[in-house]
């Protein structure tokens, strides 16, 4: 936020009028919020999985793409068979995306991940292979071209809260979807029996097993949950952009940085990191080219990680 204020003061110094500055600040801030929503949506599922089993899922982006394609498929079905449903298919698509990606995640854990828990580095390789397979499968089934879902009327256009400021509705929707989803994940982790089981397994796997928690199933459900969240993220994505087989790979490194930067296993850390990185990038983009802003942000994250390798939020426990 201090960066934002500095920016505003700087612009004032450059001779922009107060009204213009307000407009730029809001729109630039909103661009940052949009990026924040994307990062957080992507990182949330990954954070749940990484925090739980210290496994990095390189195919995470593809689970997102899977959710997006589910949405596209549903929108296409509605369009061709029941145009009347087009207004309200979207919430259904979100649920469907969750279950499709979640189910595939469930199978992935059973087939691959569970054999590699003791070798986290190998999981990197195996899931990278999985992502290659998924991408090619998308290409074979849906075609290499970019596609997009038909959006219901109420998601289109923008509104003007006041003069000189344009806020797109789909952006607002993305942000709200992100906040609601985060709320649900946190609620699930901290206020339900399932969440308690997950946290118990993270803290002490043997003990959790000893008190009768099925840790194998807990792992599998957590992985499925993480993938399901990625699916919903993909669904939410279709409101702001089109989708292609390799779309998921574009954000994957950013997402890793968000999760690692936030601190393993901390949802709050992930949220903070997503916010920080997104805001830093959008502010820097105002001054530099987009790619250079990215290099700067990557560099900054790496340097901060050197100083605080445990990430922003980390709990101290006896090793």
């Amino acid at each position, binding site marked *: 936020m201090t960066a934002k204020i500095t920016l505003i003061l700087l612009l004032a110094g450059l001779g922009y009028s107060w009204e213009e500055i307000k407009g730029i600040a809001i729109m630039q801030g909103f661009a940052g919020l949009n990026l924040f929503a994307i990062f957080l949506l992507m990182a949330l599922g990954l954070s749940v999985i990484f925090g739980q089993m210290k496994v990095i899922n390189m195919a995470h982006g593809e689970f997102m793409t899977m959710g997006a394609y589910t949405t596209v498929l549903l929108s296409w079905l509605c369009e061709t068979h029941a145009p009347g449903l087009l207004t309200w298919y979207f919430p259904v698509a979100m649920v469907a995306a969750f279950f499709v990606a979640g189910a595939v995640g469930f199978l992935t854990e059973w087939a691959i991940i569970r054999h590699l828990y003791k070798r986290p580095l190998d999981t990197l390789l195996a899931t990278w292979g999985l992502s290659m397979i998924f991408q090619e499968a998308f290409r074979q089934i849906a075609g290499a071209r970019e596609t997009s879902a038909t959006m219901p009327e109420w998601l289109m256009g923008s509104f003007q809260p006041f003069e000189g400021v344009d806020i797109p509705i789909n952006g607002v929707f993305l942000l709200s979807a992100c906040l609601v989803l985060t709320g649900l994940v946190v609620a699930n982790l901290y206020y339900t029996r399932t969440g308690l089981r997950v946290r118990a397994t993270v803290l002490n796997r043997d003990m959790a097993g000893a008190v009768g928690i099925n840790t194998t199933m807990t792992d599998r459900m957590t992985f499925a949950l993480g993938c399901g969240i990625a699916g919903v993220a993909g669904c939410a994505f279709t409101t702001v952009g089109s989708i292609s087989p390799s779309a998921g790979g574009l954000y994957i490194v950013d997402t890793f940085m968000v999760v690692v930067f936030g601190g393993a296993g901390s949802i709050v850390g992930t949220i903070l990191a997503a916010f920080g990185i997104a805001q830093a990038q959008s502010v820097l983009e105002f001054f530099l080219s987009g790619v250079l802003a990215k290099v700067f942000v990557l560099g900054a994250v790496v340097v901060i990680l050197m100083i605080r390798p445990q990430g922003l939020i980390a*709990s101290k426990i*006896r090793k």
Partner: protein
Amino acid sequence: MIYPHFALELEELTVSFDGFKAVNGVTLYVAKDELRVIIGPNGAGKTTLLDLICGRTKPTDGKITFMDKVLTRLPEQEIVRAGVVRKFQTPSIYPKISVFENLELSHPKGRTAIGAIFFRRTPDVVERIHMVAEQIFLKDLLNKEAEQLSHGQKQWLEIGMLLMADPQLLLLDEPVAGMSVREREQTAELLRSICKGRSAVVIEHDMKFVRRIADKVTVMHQGKVLAEGHMDDIEKDPRVVEVYLGH
């Protein structure tokens, strides 16, 4: 006034994990050549105390001095180089290489990255390895892969690895855990013989074993020192009986 000269001095040592004080204001002095045993119920902070001395955990407060050298903020390897070595609760050895190589890696020569590249297996190194192997009852198993040793032999091997560096202070966390009665006796002998001319801090639960080896005993409870003294006095202390021995 004459200050008694101690080897290891812990003063007001405290460590806090998110507000929970696992070790809370512990002050402890261990004399040269002394074998000190720490006992106490689970969660009393015994292992954490050893972690603090050997640098695995950094204290929130307090001071650690060994032979007039302040260890409090030193990295682990510097503490080892100052003569303080640590044995862990579960045997921690290199599983994939032979007993001989395990001992060789613990030899203080060639401790830098470049030194390790140009390290040569000279006769004095080999001789030292054989000497230590004899001490820890593993003379005939030098070529065996460490993974294949029995649990008790792994414990001995780890002690042997500590001896390679000719340390001045041994920190041993439950050295006889998981050993047979006969192995316990052998280990008691081993500890008595290797602690000549060195100090040692040992954590142990086996009271019979403690009585055999200890010079002095410190009882810890809830992060604090509850009592300290000779085993005979400790056993009669009503507070100690209450929290630990009575159970």
